[in-house]
């Protein structure tokens, strides 16, 4: 197992509601726990993954995620069993959408 931590400062979009869990810890899948947290406008992500040595890929996927949503005061915790980057991105979007209504149009920085 490998634990990876990310923190993105000065997000623009805060969350409301109860913590939500999406996804399942199964082969090629992951679970994402998302919850509002007082983090001075930052978004913290902690990943525990069974696939060791993919830090650079996670960094890129997380940076993309932050570009899309720019979350503020949010804590995201992930248990991963070797999900591909596309699956990780979809699960992260699903997690955000489970907590906050999607603004009309596309989220920050997203492209159609």
């Amino acid at each position, binding site marked *: *197992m490998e634990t990876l931590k990310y923190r993105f400062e000065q997000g623009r979009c805060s969350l409301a509601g*109860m*913590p939500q*869990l999406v996804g*399942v*810890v*199964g082969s090629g*899948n992951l*679970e994402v*726990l998302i*919850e509002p947290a007082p983090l001075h406008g930052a978004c913290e992500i902690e990943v*525990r*993954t*069974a696939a060791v040595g993919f830090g650079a890929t996670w960094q890129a996927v997380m940076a993309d995620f932050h570009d899309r949503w720019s979350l503020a005061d949010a804590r995201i*915790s992930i*248990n*991963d*069993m070797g999900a591909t980057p596309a699956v990780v991105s979809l699960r992260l979007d699903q997690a955000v959408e489970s907590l906050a209504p999607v603004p009309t149009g596309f989220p920050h920085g997203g492209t159609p």
Partner: protein
Amino acid sequence: MSSYQELTARQRIPAMFDAGSFEEFLPPSERVASPHLAQLDAPVSFDDGVVVGRGKLHGKVVFGAAQEGGFMGGAVGEVHGAKLVGMLRRAIDEGAHAVLLLLESGGVRLHEANAGLIAVSEVMRAMLDVRAAGIPVVAVVGGSNGCFGGMGIAARCANTVIMSEEGRLAMSGPEVIETANGVEEFDSRDRALVWRTTGGKHRYLLGDCQVLVEDDTAAFRAAAIDAMLALRGGEVRLTLAGLLAEQALLERRLVDADGLTEPMDVWGKLGVPAPNKVPMLEADEFLALAAQHRATVETGG
């Protein structure tokens, strides 16, 4: 129609309980995960693979749980089992109208060895305590991982077992039998054979499940409500008469199945005409046929 089998545990809860009524105990945000898996450097889940809590079913306060088959095959570890036991004990304390268990499990989580074995036995004890308190227990088996091992036994500690044809219920799973006794004994890759020996139709004909429904969430929910309402009007505790009747059913089964190795032959022995056609029958057709031939517990009043 929407498939129950394809849903995750967290999707099944709102599909089965009244809309918006379910309150989860120890939700994932509490992060009560398995300490054993962490020690083994294996992936954990924030809910240890089970959702437990209290909701409403048909307006009645019903406690319940849903096992997540996608996480380690729904296997029961120490935390997973303790969550089930805690929910069952609280159902007694709060005088629940019923308990609804959405089971999907390969049984004991072998990584946790004795802790997992003890957890499963405690779940069985707690289920019987719930029944002893006069609260009916309804088990639903319709997930793609089936219900095996210790949880297969636990399912049969419920008052009513509701299954779909796709659901599977047994003690040793097909791979376990093949590994232990060889492919000549049981070919676990023969999917038709696997369903003939563990699937809902077989269990219904043999009397191990009391209700068979199509793989449809609305059908499962309606069956759970019917079972709850029917059970509330009768005796849900273990009784000597009930156990003797169950024993008689099993003794009849031993006689009926003596020397037979193919489930279709067993169905034929029960009097089912053209047993080779049974796997292909639609639910309605099958139920009409099974009504005349299935083995049932005769309590003798």
